[in-house]
């Protein structure tokens, strides 16, 4: 339990730094910006107490906010997906039963399950994020295009890193 805790803290720090110093600076096409750090919320263990789920999501959102000068925007979006996560996990059925010790990921629950899971949560997160940033529905389709493109890229990064890291642990 303790090692899981420390692992998540390390993941928290690495993902925030990666987001803030690398991903926030690439801005593909001028508008598309992947928010890969939500990976942290996706990977939190199933047994995480709900209050810890919400507060850690709030904290990671706030940390990214502080570095990107948008205080409150990322944290609002993160708290939203942390709130929706338990319900979504209950709705998505997988081939395997939820045994104790199982972790959210392709290795334990299969590609289809994890793909759906991350696509839905990332899309909701990006939707909330970009519309809070625009703060109006005036340019709805433009913002929506940003949401679609950025979530596509984020999901791609998430799936990619799943394969990268799960193969390493297998060996």
């Amino acid at each position, binding site marked *: 339990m303790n090692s899981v805790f420390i692992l998540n803290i390390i993941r928290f720090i690495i993902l925030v730094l990666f987001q803030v110093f690398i991903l926030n600076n690439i801005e593909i096409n001028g508008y598309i910006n992947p928010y890969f750090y939500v990976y942290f919320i996706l990977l939190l263990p199933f047994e995480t107490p709900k*209050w810890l789920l919400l507060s850690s999501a709030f904290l990671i959102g*706030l940390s990214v*906010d502080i570095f990107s000068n*948008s205080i*409150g925007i990322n944290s*609002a979006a993160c708290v939203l997906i942390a709130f929706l996560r338990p319900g979504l996990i209950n709705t998505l059925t997988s081939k395997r039963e939820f045994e104790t010790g199982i972790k959210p990921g392709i290795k334990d629950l299969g590609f289809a399950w994890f793909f759906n899971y991350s696509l839905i949560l990332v899309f909701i997160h990006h939707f909330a994020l970009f519309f809070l940033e625009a703060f109006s529905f005036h340019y709805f389709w433009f913002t929506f295009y940003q949401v679609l493109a950025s979530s596509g890229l984020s999901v791609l990064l998430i799936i990619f890193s799943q394969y990268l890291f799960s193969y390493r642990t297998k060996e």
Partner: protein
Amino acid sequence: MRYFFIFLWKHSFFFLFLIFEFISFLLIVNNNPYQRSYIVNSTNELTGNMFSAFTNFTEYLSLKKNNNTLAQENANLHSKLNLLSSIETDSSFNVSTDSNFLFLPAKVISNSINNRINYLMLDKGKSDGVKIDMGVISSTGIVGLVCQVSENFSSVMSVLHKDAKISARIKENNQLVNVIWKGDDYRIGTIEDIPTHIKVIPGDTIITSGNSLIFPEGILIGNCKDFIENSGENLNNAEIIFSTDFNSLSYVYIINNLMREEQNNLIDSLPDE
């Protein structure tokens, strides 16, 4: 009460979610100027529409009094016009009639006098050319300063505001003073920090100085009521009675200083010390 706590505990996840979202929104509104201005403007527009509907109705009740003040103002203007035309025909002096100031009439649709910070709302906005920092006067004297503009409405920070400070002049001896409002009585203003060598006599007229780029010179502020000598200190205070009755404002004028930008540029171009 016990059931209430049980209810809270049962749905603690949901309430915690609400609390976190609430904190996030507070942070957004407090730290991001764009989002804040969007909220302020849209609520301004909404409350503006509601207030204007309400005033449209209550206006009828004060119609008679308004008619009187307008008639009085008309009479005043007529007498001034007469004076002007007599000067033009009688003397060889060339009276300059062009002025830097334009006046836009506006209707007061909401007004407060009971707070430490008081605001009015007017039915003229961006689409009528109103901009932030324009002065507002009524036919009886000074009113305030435009502090927020939406498409069709504007908020005015009234003189009855704890941070308001008006550059004024004593008409009788041309001394410059500052008028502030202490926050208790909406009829009484205060002149602070008068050097001892200047005496203000009850009954003296206080007018705007024209130094502020916002108000033209000579707009009435009020009359001195009391001169308070602080023994032992070298600065005295005085109390004045505002000539404007803030409680019954209904029509005001927004002042547009056409030369403001030029004057501002000149000030900005002065070398800093």
